[in-house]
């Protein structure tokens, strides 16, 4: 006899799981499938095998941009890892002062669109840059040099965070044993510290490599005539409207990103195994040389980051850099320019809406996957789909979305069946940008929610069931209140990223709505670099403002929760 407790509650739960799965399937899986199919079809949609690939390889530009991309990604990863390692070491393993402040400074690049680094570089080393005269005439910042420096800045906070986490916890007994054997500082670093953060370093390298490979903003501004894969992809789609070749080119961004995602995953599992037992910190001993060296190093890096930001800030409030340094706010009067559909408030609202729905969807889905058992196959599929955005560069997502939402009918592969695309009406609306933002930044908040939920007793729902309380009541009265700090964190993560992102939205903005980040590119192209700087700086300050609100709210929340929060 099979017992089934069919009830409204169970039906509702199954419906929720199903709709979450459908959301992920429609907005992640189908667009990617559409992209893959497009790369194998002609403009009419007939299957042509690898013809598009052959065509793409025939063009000489492909090889140049591929080589350029590899040089950029490799160099900027190496440069940034070296600096981030030093900075992470300084903030975890030395006695330098003001660690909290230094950490916050290292995070600043997260608040800026990548275009800002390009713009600052132009002001420093560009045609009218203040330092340009110190270099020989043959040197030009427009090109590989510029891109490499800009990307190094962009990826620095990401790499710093990874290495910071790796360096933070360690097994003190190893160092104590080494001390007993009279090992020297450098030897301890090479023999103990480096091996213990091996996986952190590998992860950092691949994250850095992927981020700089797939970034569009910096090479667009500072690349000059030098093409990288990311700018080439956009050229095919936006310039030539050649979707087939564009799809092929974007696969060359997807493959390394996907590969690095798997390596990263593998590394993080190994890293966990490394710390399986008893890693506890011990008190850092005084070491004068270490203190002085790392103080100088950390201050140096901080000054460069702040200085770099300040260049754009300063240039954006001067009349005409570098000839007329009279202060003015005219560059911030964005209404002076015709920027087609651009609006600061609309940008903020779209970011807020993305953050709001993104947080709800992420948390609910993490909850359904983690804590419920109703439709296991769909829950498993959702779990898998939830990790894909991590390996999905924004450009690829953007192109997939145009291809998917722009086609009035969808043909099912290997059949002649065509079904009308019920979602085509979303094309050309800000809704598609909201969805793109949610999907683009989905994985990290999903993981944050999952780890927050993991800490919550899995018997709560069972306990509540025996008390005749509905699952919804427990979700709203127990799970949400407990996870509120994580929800806030997720919200601000979605918001900040939605503000700075360019890669997916560059393909999706509409005549009625153009986000600030897209407007930066437009202004720079039309030679209004000071306005582009002003826009970039505005984004940074909006994000810092959002961050401050977040910190304030978290503090308030912690005061209220102090009594009961043990997490």
């Amino acid at each position, binding site marked *: 006899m099979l017992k089934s407790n069919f009830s409204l509650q169970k039906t509702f739960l199954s419906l929720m799981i199903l709709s979450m799965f459908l959301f992920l399937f429609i907005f992640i899986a189908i667009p990617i499938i559409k992209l893959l199919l497009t790369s194998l079809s002609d403009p009419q949609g007939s299957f042509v095998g690898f013809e598009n690939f052959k065509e793409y390889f025939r063009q000489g530009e492909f090889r140049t941009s591929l080589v350029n991309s590899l040089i950029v990604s490799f160099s900027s990863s190496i440069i940034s890892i070296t600096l981030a390692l030093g900075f992470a070491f300084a903030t975890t393993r030395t006695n330098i002062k003001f660690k909290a402040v230094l950490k916050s400074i290292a995070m600043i690049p997260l608040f800026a669109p990548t275009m800002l680094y390009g713009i600052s570089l132009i002001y420093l080393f560009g045609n009218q840059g203040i330092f340009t005269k110190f270099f020989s005439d043959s040197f030009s910042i427009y090109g590989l040099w510029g891109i490499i420096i800009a990307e190094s800045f962009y990826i620095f906070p990401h790499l710093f965070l990874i290495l910071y986490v790796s360096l933070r916890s360690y097994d003190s007994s190893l160092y104590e044993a080494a001390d007993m054997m009279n090992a020297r500082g450098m030897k301890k670093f090479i023999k103990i510290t480096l091996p213990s953060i091996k996986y952190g370093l590998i992860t950092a390298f691949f994250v850095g490599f992927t981020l700089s490979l797939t970034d569009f903003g910096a090479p667009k501004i500072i690349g000059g005539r030098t093409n990288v894969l990311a700018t080439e992809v956009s050229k095919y789609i936006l310039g030539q409207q050649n979707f087939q070749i564009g799809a092929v080119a974007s696969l060359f961004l997807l493959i390394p990103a996907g590969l690095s995602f798997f390596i990263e995953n593998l590394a993080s599992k190994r890293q966990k195994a490394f710390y399986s037992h008893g890693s506890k910190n011990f008190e850092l001993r005084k070491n004068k040389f270490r203190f002085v060296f790392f103080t100088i190093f950390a201050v140096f890096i901080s000054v460069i980051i702040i200085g770099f930001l300040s260049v754009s800030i300063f240039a954006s409030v001067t009349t005409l850099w570098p000839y007329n340094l009279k202060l003015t706010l005219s560059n911030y009067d964005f209404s002076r320019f015709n920027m087609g559909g651009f609006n600061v408030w609309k940008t903020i609202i779209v970011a807020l809406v993305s953050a709001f729905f993104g947080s709800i969807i992420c948390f609910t889905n993490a909850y359904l996957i983690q804590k419920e058992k109703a439709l296991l196959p769909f829950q498993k599929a959702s779990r898998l789909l939830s990790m894909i955005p991590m390996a999905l560069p924004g450009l690829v997502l953007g192109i997939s979305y145009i291809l998917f939402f722009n086609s009035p009918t969808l043909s099912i592969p290997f059949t002649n069946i065509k079904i009308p695309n019920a979602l085509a009406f979303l094309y050309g609306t800000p809704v598609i940008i909201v969805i793109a933002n949610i999907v683009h930044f989905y994985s990290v908040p999903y993981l944050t929610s999952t780890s927050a939920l993991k800490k919550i007793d899995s018997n709560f729902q069972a306990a509540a*069931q025996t008390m005749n309380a509905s699952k919804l009541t427990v979700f709203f009265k127990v799970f949400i*209140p407990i996870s509120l700090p994580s929800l806030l964190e997720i919200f601000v993560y979605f918001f900040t990223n939605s503000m700075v992102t360019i890669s997916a939205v560059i393909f999706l903005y509409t005549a009625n709505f153009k986000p600030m980040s897209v407007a930066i590119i437009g202004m720079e192209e039309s030679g209004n670099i000071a306005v582009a700087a002003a826009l970039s700086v505005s984004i940074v300050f909006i994000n810092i403002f959002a961050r401050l609100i977040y910190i304030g709210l978290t503090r308030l929340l912690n005061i209220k929760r102090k009594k*009961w929060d043990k997490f």
Partner: protein
Amino acid sequence: MMKANKNLIQIENVSKKYGNTFALKNINLEIFEGEFLCLLGPSGCGKSTLLRILAGLETNYDGKILKNGKEIDAIEPGKRKFGMVFQSYSLFPNMSVEKNIEFALKAFKYEKQKINAKIESVLELTNLLEHRKKFPNQLSGGQQQRVALARAIAPEPTVLLLDEPLSALDFKVREELRQQLKKIQRDIGVTTIMVTHDQEEALSLADRVAVMNHAELVQISTPEEIYRNPKSFFVANFIGTMNNIYNKFIRPEDVKISDKKGCNTHSGIVISNEFRGFYRRIKLKSEIENEKKEIIVDIPIFHHQDRSFNEGESIHFNLPQEVVSEQIKERIC
């Protein structure tokens, strides 16, 4: 124990499988109104699964659960009105003690005017009045456990289900709570089913003990009966220690050290001697009727205080009358 009570819960032929392994195999069990029943067994024997089935938390199983003669298999957990205490207590950390209790009362749609009085009375019963405003993480493990109990009994459940409620606690607290639990159960007279792997806990708390092993119910009886007359070597050994002599189970405390040789006296050589507080446990190598045996003897600490029982020492011991073999009976005793 409460006698002549009517049968409240009837478990009929309940089986549950996970893949190819049985979690429960043909369980038949009656639970009487007002009794305290312990489901005792090693981990993985299926006792917790049975409890979850009773609670309504597990739904796919064969067999039937009856309450007052009516099938309740299709009834949702909340509608059964069984109170449950989980091993991890599952107290909502963001709610104070009284809010946790209020949550349960509200979910059972208690009348508003009665809620406060009810909270007051269960807090008094569980000795928690002074902690009512505190949050779970401000309480000790024992106090949290009492809150979980208070929350479970507040809605006046017909049956109270306890899933290893004491096993996460320190020894001292556990003993103290055991007595409180028993007292509370007597006071309110609620039919209680408790899962435990601790035989001492089961023997001291329960009116009846149901011993389970490998998904099956192996014996159900009063604690004394289970201890004195275990039906199998498993039960015998699970409930304390046993010697198996002539296929009879002899408790170590029933083997007596003797100074002189009698007709039911055997001799053995001491192989170990452990001091265990109020008694001393001695293992002997012996030969009984040409069969090599290891005999365990527990000697109260105030007996034979003059002797040392060193390893290798040869000593004599008496077996109880009922295990006298036919051969010995023939001798003149």
